[in-house]
């Protein structure tokens, strides 16, 4: 309770919470301090964990190998050229040379495009289609229904009967909703409408989960204030 650092953390927490009552100078100061500390933190972590081990050290080795004694290994030369390309990014601020920063940007966008094409095809598209090729009757659902005791299990087993049908129909209906070459009229219109209903259920589920997420964030801060700052014992 008397550790000065706990008081600092409490002040930071209360400064932000004060915004709930009214926007005030203490909140504004905490907000600006937050942006400053975060930027300073990012600068240091990128310097320590990325630039030193992945840029300065290898380029020092590359320069040393290239111009120092002995024949430079090809990888060192390649590494030096890729480091040079990366340094062009810093030209972005100079009025004349800004176009030079587009070269590394182009390479970066190309890298992410190549990875996206592979990752999306192999990780999302094919497996998600493959895992929806389901038999209409959920295998084994009859036996679970027969063995279910009580209303709750009975209801769950009864719903289980239709799991595959709902998965198949739901996926097809929602895909039709995101189909743009046919007007939403007649059969397509009704299927698209069914697709919207599935979307709304999925948004409802996401709403529920997001509520849970936000509340646990506030709970963590309240725990700190009650337990660490005010000394009321709480957590298990």
């Amino acid at each position: 309770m008397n550790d000065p650092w706990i008081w600092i953390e409490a002040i930071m927490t209360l400064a932000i919470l004060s915004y709930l009552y009214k926007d005030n100078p203490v909140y504004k100061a905490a907000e600006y301090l937050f942006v400053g500390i975060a930027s300073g933190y990012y600068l240091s972590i990128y310097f320590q964990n990325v630039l030193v081990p992945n840029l300065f050290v290898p380029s020092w080795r590359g320069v040393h190998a290239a111009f120092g004694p002995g024949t430079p290994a090809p990888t060192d030369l390649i590494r030096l050229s890729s480091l040079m390309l990366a340094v062009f990014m810093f030209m972005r601020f100079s009025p004349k040379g800004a176009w030079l920063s587009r070269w590394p940007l182009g390479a970066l966008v190309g890298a992410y495009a190549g990875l996206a094409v592979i990752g999306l095809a192999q990780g999302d598209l094919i497996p998600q289609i493959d895992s929806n090729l389901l038999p209409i009757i959920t295998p084994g659902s009859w036996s679970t229904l027969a063995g279910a005791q009580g209303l709750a299990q009975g209801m769950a087993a009864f719903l289980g009967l239709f799991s595959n049908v709902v998965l198949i129909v739901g996926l097809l209906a929602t895909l039709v909703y995101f189909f743009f070459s046919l007007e939403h009229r007649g059969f397509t219109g009704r299927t698209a409408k069914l697709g919207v209903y599935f979307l709304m259920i999925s948004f409802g589920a996401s709403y529920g989960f997001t509520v849970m997420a936000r509340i646990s964030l506030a709970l963590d801060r309240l725990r700190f204030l009650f337990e660490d700052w005010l000394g009321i014992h709480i957590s298990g």
Partner: protein
Amino acid sequence: MSLTQRIESLDRRWIFLVMLVAMSFPLIVHMKLPVRASPEARGFYENIEKLQAGDVVYLASDYDPGGKAELDPMLLAVLDRLFQKNVKIVGATLWPAGSPLLERAYKAEAPKYNKVYGVDYVHLGFKEGKENVMVQLGKSIREVFPVDYYGTPLDSLPLMHSGLNGKPIDKLNDTKLLVNISIGYPGTKEWVQQVRSRFNLPMISGCAAVSAPEYFPYVQSGQLSGLLGGLAGAAEYEEMIDRPGWGVTGMAAQSLAHVTIVLLIVLGNFVYFWNRRQGVSRP
């Protein structure tokens, strides 16, 4: 102005006060409620139980202070269980503000089972590059992380050159399981797309509740062998390894807060429609 009208135009700070009470009361009064495990959480538990002593897992702790509330309890519970089972851990993060959180979790759990840094667990720190880093880790960990979080070269860490049955750990596939604690991008979705399918490494994930619904298709397709969703996921896992921590306590407060939100939705709509029937409500 009728009662319902006054309620409808209530100053939002009264609602803030109601929420503050709903969240604080169960904390102070130590309300405790039993937690029931969901199927995807059981998958997460079973996959860790299957690990043997000496196995090595790759721990991708991809979150920052914004996600601390939900994911710290998960990370602590997972580390507790892995250390208890003498499983070795290679940990790293793709989030710039994530390294200190992993370090603090290690410092909290390792002494309990007197685990030694460099032998039983390793902290490789943070690396920028998102999907690029993931694919490259699948080929060579040393290329991505020449040194660990403390600047020590990887080869001088016993764990890195004598993993399971003496084989050195060069790439992700030299580990048995990918355990990912994830708050957003880059996170579980990118690990599934770039690593799980490409390098065929079994994977389980603990994620923030906000992103959990999007990952259910990966559980049904078998790409994710287990999923913990938000504080509820943490509580379920704590219950399964009977190590009650903040997850279980928090869930009691969470229950009352959820009921409050549901009542607010119902009340909000009741008052809105009631006033409309009286033809007085705002749009």
